[in-house]
């Protein structure tokens, strides 16, 4: 880093501090933010696993059984558990942030945050039930 220029009456030497690489470790809110950013990687892991599953299905029952055995191996179980934790974390933080971005006004007054977040959860529940019904019961 360049040395700050010397102080003169016309060029005051301002002191600039550098932001630490580990700035996110000092505060829980910052750490939570970084975890939330990292959670996107695990959302992608879930998607990749799903695509691999479809690919295995397409290659026939033998390939699918092999894929399932691979999924049951301890490292994959650990990865799935970790991914599940991060995906749930991602979803919950997403819904709690939704009221900040969504402003819904009813007869001129802004709907409270709890209503916005609650309706997001409700929509999630309805979609989950429909998918569950289509996969299991339909």
């Amino acid at each position, binding site marked *: 880093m360049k040395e700050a220029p010397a*102080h003169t009456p016309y060029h*005051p*030497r*301002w*002191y*600039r*501090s550098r*932001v630490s690489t580990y*700035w*996110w470790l*000092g505060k829980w*809110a*910052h750490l939570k*933010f970084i975890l939330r*950013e990292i959670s996107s990687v695990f959302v992608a892991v879930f998607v990749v696993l799903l695509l691999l599953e479809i690919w295995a299905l397409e290659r026939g029952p033998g390939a699918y059984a092999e894929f399932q055995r691979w999924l049951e191996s301890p490292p994959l179980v650990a990865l799935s558990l970790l991914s599940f934790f991060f995906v749930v974390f991602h979803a919950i933080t997403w819904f709690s*942030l939704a009221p*900040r*971005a*969504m*402003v819904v*006004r009813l007869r*001129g007054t802004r709907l409270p945050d709890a209503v916005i977040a609650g309706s997001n959860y409700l929509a999630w529940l309805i979609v989950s039930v429909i998918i569950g019904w289509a996969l299991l019961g339909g």
Partner: protein
Amino acid sequence: MGETIELEVTRYTPERDREPSRQTYAVPLRKDWTVLDGLNHIKDREDGSLTFRWSCRMGICGSCGMMVNGEPKLTCATFLFRYAPGPVRVEPLRYFPIIRDLVVAINDFMAKLQAVKPWIIREEEKALAEGEYLQTPQQLEVYKQYSMCINCMICYAACPVYGLDPLFAGPAAIALAQRYNMDSRDQGAAERLSILSQHEGIWGCTFVGECTKVCPKQVDPAGAIQQYKLTAAKKWIQGLLMPWGAK
């Protein structure tokens, strides 16, 4: 003198010091004293060379923002007894260059504020004789929250994105742009969007959300930025689907 509390204050004299240091002062701990009262006590009674900004003492002027125990605060609205028995660390606002002691350079913020054109823009001004631009209480309500911003820069000191990327427009500037975008009398939204839809504008924000938590005026800059992103995305899709209608 009765009970006291220690203030650990950042000192930096550019003509003399290579980097800031900390000096400890004991000030009276009174129920109605704020951190700013403590600093004024030091300046009046103990060390007249201590330098800091302040003006109104009532949360209006936005001059006395500092880091108090690592959190950005308006020192005129932060009571000393909340930190008893102390010590209380008082530092200049984070992420800004320090000019002297607790005074930071605000040039960068002023330039960003001006860049987003925080004033009412009209395509065509109506004649004075035609009267004022009228507004209903409902229309006022839409942007009123954002108009409460006092430019204290506390949100910048809470924003790690600004700390890491000084080119980022920052929470208050974007919230104020939004304040005028949502004003029914304004017609400058497209002009501001072209400035703020760049990477260093709204898209630089990664939604840490700390700006909203620390705002002493409940402005909610994080909300303003996310709503702005939504508007920008809608405009982009609109332009993609209906290129002839987009402006």
